[in-house]
């Protein structure tokens, strides 16, 4: 029975169960993290600073106590154990070598504290066990072996302060692995090294992981490092796991726009599903391979290297090159399509101003669910201080663009500092809440402004309907929550109260 248990548990060496850490100031550093790490795996926690990756590592090491949740090591909860009783060792961010000890003494620090049970046999055959420390010869042998692994033979008597950053890093690794831990924790160990050294050490660490066969848990904010070394990458943000998977999965199938943006360069568009395996973005419907419900609002991610440039008219959408930079192996070009910029990487250069056409293969279009909380449009302000977006013109409050401003009799905006600004044709980002859109029959007397479209989708959401109205001209969508019943294909007019239209300047207006 017991053997069965160990067999089952040996699969996962570390298991985090609802692990949570709330700091004294109330900040939630790690929020209900659940994770299983297999024995012998190279797992990387990846995320921007402050995402909770280091705190998670520190909790596994025992330097930080979880507020709630469990850390299971081989199936046993170790969250109450002090660090010196855990069979894990850490390579610290700034190495944390003992400055008063030489290289050999640093590496031997853990060995000198280690106690082992030795069983002796008397001449009469009876046995007894004794707890002993490792002998000096044993320690010296292990230290030598560890230093050999990190390529630092002959450095035993050197003072650690005379070593270079890379050498100190190796000592720190030797000091940890010499104790033969079940898990090696590495907290951004290469952060302080220069680029070339870092690349070399990445490969060496990977090699070491293969040789030693122990579990590595690695923390980094460098996506390239994570992709190079890991078996599994755990992408974190705001104390939560965003995605967990192999480097290939994470790169090719990011779970959301954050992961897509964090791993590698990417173009992120907002799009709408227009049919089965059809998505509309860049004002064009593309075929895709991800299945989402019709009319769902989605994030579309396309890697720059997956966008192909063709001669005008030959691809899916036409655009114009607005910038081109040589990056060594490829050119990084920006193609402007309508008002949207698409970053393209290609080995063939296109000159700025060239008219081109882009082509994206269906399998290179990655679609992610988007949490839809508000309608977002790009628009501009008119001479009458109304705003045009989504195929319609709406009255709005332009003074919200500048706090403390007001309109004078001629319709110019006067800022709090007394500056006069002409807002005509200024580009703005428009946001309208789902509940702020009113729908009316087109037959009823049309008010001034507004937009007109057909209802393309009605979803019942328990206590209200979510209705999508699509305009004719540019196929702009208005998503609105309403309590009234409509029918699909009803032709309706859209009106929005001026105070419900939230405006943001796209860029600082030139005065």
């Amino acid at each position, binding site marked *: 029975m017991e053997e069965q248990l160990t067999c089952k548990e040996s699969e996962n060496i570390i298991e985090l169960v609802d692990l949570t850490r709330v700091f004294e100031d109330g900040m939630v550093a790690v929020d209900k993290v659940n994770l299983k790490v297999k024995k012998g795996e190279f797992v990387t926690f990846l995320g921007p600073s402050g995402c909770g990756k280091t705190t998670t590592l520190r909790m596994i*090491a*025992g*330097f930080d106590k979880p507020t709630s949740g469990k850390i299971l090591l081989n199936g046993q909860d170790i969250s109450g154990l*002090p*660090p*010196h009783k855990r069979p*894990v*060792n*850490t390579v*610290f*961010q*700034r190495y*944390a*070598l*003992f*400055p*008063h*000890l030489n290289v050999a003494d640093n590496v031997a*620090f*853990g060995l000198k*504290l*280690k106690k082992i049970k030795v069983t002796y046999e008397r001449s009469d055959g009876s046995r007894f066990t004794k707890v002993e420390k490792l002998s000096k010869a044993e320690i010296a042998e292990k230290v030598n072996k560890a230093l050999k692994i990190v390529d630092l033979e002959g450095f035993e008597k050197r*003072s650690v*302060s005379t070593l270079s950053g890379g050498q100190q890093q190796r000592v720190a690794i030797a*000091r*940890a692995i010499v*104790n033969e831990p079940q898990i090696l924790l590495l907290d951004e160990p290469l952060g302080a090294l220069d680029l070339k050294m870092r690349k070399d050490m990445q490969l060496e660490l990977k090699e070491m992981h293969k040789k030693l066969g122990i579990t590595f848990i690695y923390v980094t904010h460098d996506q390239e490092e994570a992709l190079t070394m890991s078996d599994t990458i755990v992408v974190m943000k705001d104390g939560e796991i965003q995605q967990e998977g192999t480097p290939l999965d994470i790169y090719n199938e990011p779970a959301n726009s954050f992961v897509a943006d964090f791993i590698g360069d990417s173009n992120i568009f907002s799009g709408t599903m227009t049919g089965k395996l059809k998505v509309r973005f860049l004002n064009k419907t593309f075929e895709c391979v991800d299945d989402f419900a019709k009319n769902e609002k989605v994030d579309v991610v396309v890697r720059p290297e997956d966008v192909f440039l063709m001669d005008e008219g030959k691809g899916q959408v036409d655009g114009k090159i607005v910038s081109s930079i040589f990056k060594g192996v490829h050119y990084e070009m920006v193609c402007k399509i309508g008002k949207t910029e698409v970053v393209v990487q290609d080995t063939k250069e296109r000159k700025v101003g060239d008219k081109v056409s882009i082509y994206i293969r269906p399998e290179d279009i990655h679609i992610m669910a988007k949490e839809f909380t508000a309608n977002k449009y790009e628009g501009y302000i008119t001479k009458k201080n109304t705003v045009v977006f989504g195929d319609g013109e709406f009255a709005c409050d332009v003074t919200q663009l500048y706090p403390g401003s007001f309109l004078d009799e001629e319709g110019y905006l006067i800022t709090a500092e007394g500056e006069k600004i002409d807002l005509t044709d200024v580009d703005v980002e428009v946001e309208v809440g789902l509940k702020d859109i009113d729908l009316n029959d087109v037959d009823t007397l049309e008010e001034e402004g507004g937009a007109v479209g057909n209802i393309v989708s009605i979803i019942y959401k328990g206590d209200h309907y979510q209705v999508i109205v699509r305009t004719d001209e540019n196929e702009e969508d208005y998503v609105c929550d309403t309590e009234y019943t409509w029918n699909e294909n009803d032709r309706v007019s859209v009106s929005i109260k001026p105070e419900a239209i939230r405006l943001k300047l796209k860029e600082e207006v030139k005065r």
Partner: protein
Amino acid sequence: MASSVKAVARENYAGNEKKTFRALFKRSYLAIPYGLFLALFVVFPLFLIVYYAFTDKSGGFTFNNFVAFFSSSTYVSNLLISIGIACVTTAVCLLIAYPVAYILSRFKSARSYIFVLLFIAPMWINFVLRAYALREILNLFGLLGKTNFLNTVIGMVYDFLPFMILPIYTTLIKMDKSLEEASADLGGNGAVTFFKVTLPLSVPGIVSGAMMVFLPSMSCYVITDTFGNSKVPLIGKLIESMFGTNANWNMGSALAIVMLIIMFITMLLTGGFKGEKETTRGNAL
């Protein structure tokens, strides 16, 4: 006839006018006032002391002052008592100051600053005032005039304790906390971590604290006067009497030189001259 002005050549202006001033004034000139100060108030007095120590009253060269010092059992015992008092004071200060500094350095809240301040504040209060206050307390317990040696040590410890706490506290606060974490990570429990990492690494603080206490407590005769009923003869007192009541400047200077050499040797032994290598010395402890 109106003449027009036209620029015929334009070049970048790099502020070359200042060059003449720069050439005349070197940065090292700033050191001149300090050099003068040192010469006037350190080198010259030192020279005077050496001069007096090796001359007799008529001004002739002699070693007699030193011979007299080392052949007098009173003088030598004074010196030994001074060293003894200084050693005891330093040891007691260290025993009290280290735990205090350690606990203070572990305080996490911002309020810890107030506690540190409480221990350091006595340094800012007038020395004589503090001495007399403590004297009254000793009097209250009926110790004054009876346990002269003990009273002296109490007075010295009271007086010099902040000088021991501050450097130790500073070293502990500045210590990289990840070193203690590394020790725990490698299997060291609290005691191992303290004795193998924290203590060795705080040796620089201990050394500078010990110097701040040991050297002045050897000659601080005001405290023996106040607490020890003037019955504990310190070498400082002896020097004072040579320059005062005995009017024997030559002997006084010789005593000062002996003190100077002892202090020099102490500094040499504790490595007080080389600040950088101190961290590596932790092994010796």
